[in-house]
């Protein structure tokens, strides 16, 4: 098991390297630069800036410098948020994004599995149909619609909850963004659970369990549920990585100081280092969660061997 983890982590290094390399050059080949503002800067200032940030050097040298620094954890200064290094910006924003994302993930997972299981057990009933219709709305309505609509109803019309901001970090501030973030994922979990539960309930070994007089509850919980969890566990990795690294849309709508916004802002402003920093962050999250899920998978399914 330990050797499996180590091997997987080792194989993540080249992946990470390729991701960073591709991102670096893609970013640089895009037209425009961080200091091409609406009103052009005087050439002298521009030159000074370029020199200060070493952007006047040949691309390959910039690349090597960046890689060298990145290995030591130095992702350089942000070009747009001039007083901060990228590491500082991410370090400041990440806790907010992760806290919000964690609650959203919990809500999506627990809610989705419960809803999906109920729908599967009452397949083709009215309950199934209505629950899954709501889930379909959840999948189809993007969070940039859900967010504003939630704000309109609960913050503006009913004034129950704050319209945005982090405030003191209490639950009141978290509820709306959490729902906006969790709803689409909850719906995905619900649909996945329903599908794989129905599949699992049809397998031969469920028939065996029923033929041996095991009560319905133990058939569902002990035998069907565990098998049905496998595809859900697989989806957990990309979902957790996406939720915990923050969402540009939700953080913008609810003015939350997380890292999700940096990514889009960085790309639009050609803030090379900031974008690179977020790319690395997301890639690391994806790799770590994939590994965690593989380990979990092995614990759930004895047929999977990690050796």
């Amino acid at each position: 098991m330990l050797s499996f983890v180590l091997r997987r982590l080792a194989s993540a290094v080249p992946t990470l390297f390729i991701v960073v390399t591709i991102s670096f050059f893609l970013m640089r080949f895009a037209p425009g630069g961080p200091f091409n503002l609406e009103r052009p800067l005087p050439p002298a200032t521009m030159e000074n800036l370029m020199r200060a940030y070493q952007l006047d050097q040949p691309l390959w040298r910039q690349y090597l410098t960046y890689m060298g620094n990145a290995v030591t954890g130095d992702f350089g200064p942000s070009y747009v948020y001039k007083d901060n290094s990228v590491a500082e910006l991410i370090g400041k924003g990440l806790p907010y994004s992760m806290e919000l994302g964690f609650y959203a993930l919990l809500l999506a997972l627990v809610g989705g599995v419960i809803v999906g299981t109920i729908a599967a057990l009452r397949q083709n009933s009215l309950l199934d149909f209505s629950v899954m219709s709501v889930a379909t709305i959840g999948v189809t309505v993007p969070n940039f619609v859900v967010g504003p609509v939630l704000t309109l109803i609960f913050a503006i019309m009913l004034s129950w909850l704050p319209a945005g901001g982090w405030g003191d970090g209490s639950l009141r501030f978290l509820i709306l963004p959490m729902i906006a973030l969790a709803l689409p994922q909850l719906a995905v979990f619900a649909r996945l659970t329903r599908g794989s539960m129905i599949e699992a309930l049809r397998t031969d070994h469920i028939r065996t369990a029923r033929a041996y007089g095991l009560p319905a509850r133990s058939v569902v919980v002990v035998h069907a549920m565990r098998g049905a969890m496998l595809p859900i566990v697989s989806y957990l990795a990309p979902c957790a990585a996406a939720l915990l690294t923050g969402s540009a849309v939700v953080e913008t709508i609810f003015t939350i100081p997380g890292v999700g916004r940096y990514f889009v802002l960085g790309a639009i402003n050609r803030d090379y280092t900031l974008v690179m920093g977020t790319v690395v962050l997301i890639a690391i999250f994806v790799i770590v969660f994939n590994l965690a899920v593989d380990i979990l998978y092995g614990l759930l399914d004895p047929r999977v061997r990690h050796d």
Partner: protein
Amino acid sequence: MTEETKAMEPILSVRDLKVSFTTPDGDVNAVKGIDLDVRPGETLAVVGESGSGKSQTMMGIMGLLAANGTVTGSATYRGQEMVGLDPKALNAIRGAKITMIFQEPMTSLDPLYPIGKQIAEVIVHHRGGTQKAARPRVLELLKLVGIPDPERRIDSYPHEMSGGQRQRIMIAMALANEPDILIADEPTTALDVTIQAQILKLLRDLQKRFDMAIVLITHDLGIVRHFAERVVVMRRGEVVEQGATGELFETPKADYTRMLIEAEPSGRKAAPPDNAPIILEGRNVVVDYRIDGGLLKKRASTFRAVDDVTISLHEGQTIGVVGESGSGKSTLGRALLRLIASEGAYRFGRTDISGLDRAGMRPLRRSMQLVFQDPYGSLSPRQTVGEIITEGLYVHEPQLSRAERDKRAIEALKEVGLDPAARNRYPHEFSGGQRQRIAIARAMILKPQAVVLDEPTSALDRSVQGQVIELLRDLQARYGLSYVFISHDLSVVRAMSDYVVVMKDGRIVEEGPTDAIFSAPRAAYTRTLIGAAYNIAP
């Protein structure tokens, strides 16, 4: 009431039982009101071909139908009505008084739990206690069904065991609560003959020991003849005939029963003259399968599927290749046709084809054809029958016009005994036997000289099997074809071939003229194989 009449009192009586399924394409009546009795300690065989409703009858009684199925009528177990019984009361009978084993030992056990735990769960549920307390009993059961080293195997997962062992585990589970009735639904169909014999023997021994009734659902009359005391013959959801085994086999009353019994392949194939030239030959054939380790893992291991086999097919000859699953017989067939990478020297007629690549083989393909086992999988579901059987003409006679191709299709269909109108239809509209005829037509339209038949009758019902064998013999006689006939079914091989090759683990164990092999097998393995096959003859 004397002891004898009491013993004759049925413990399970089924009266006017009906099973139907609602499907999007209308209702299907799978069982149309049948009556049958199971008496204590007896073995009752329920026989029928696919679609006869034999399995659905039992599933209906046990409350195991798919969600769209409904069961009506009556089935009483010791006076207790089981049809429509509430799940709790039904669960007290299922698994304790009446237990089941199924056809697919590979999927019938939960892959996520150790087998010991699954057996213990059944014990704990019906008798109370804890998993831990049930452990000695589980070990005892595992010993009983002949699992070697039960202390170690009790914590194994199903995927760590072979098919035969899993079926033993299922039997252990079925016996755990000492039931009155064991329903065995095609318990050996998915297993090799030698394993089949062991499992059936085990069932018979345990039946005596526990004094339980066995309901044996099967399509195999040979097994019925050797194991059952009474037989119920079903066809299309109805009981055609029932009675004591001996009587039923000797003096069958219903035409259908007679037809089933007579469908046992018969006849012999005469050997071609000694001077018949060789049409297809493979010398020292070796096939290795590479078990890939992925991009990062360098160590790819190999598995030798065929190990130094030499086989020569003469004009007009039929070589039967016999063996159990994993013996390499199918691989050998494909290697002979140069369809897979292999080592060895091959020739077709007088041409050396050892060094030919795919493109080089292409012109020869029309002369050497292949017919597959599964008539459902071997026809592309998206093409019409006409397109399927004329596909070879696109490659080998591309100059043909559409009308000419159509003419050839009609000829080919007539030749295999199908209505030429079939060419505008799709494969899913045909039965298994008809599909196999289509597959044969596809091979025959090219007028081949040598044909490899890979289990061409194994997926078919006995009665249909006979017809397909007739057809193949007929075509052979008409066109002087040479066959390599691959099968695990000794009775079919015996009827079809004049020369037999017995394979095990990729090697030839024994070979010789059919009669010699069957009457005086030399190799121990051949003897086991022949001994394990159950014939209808008593």
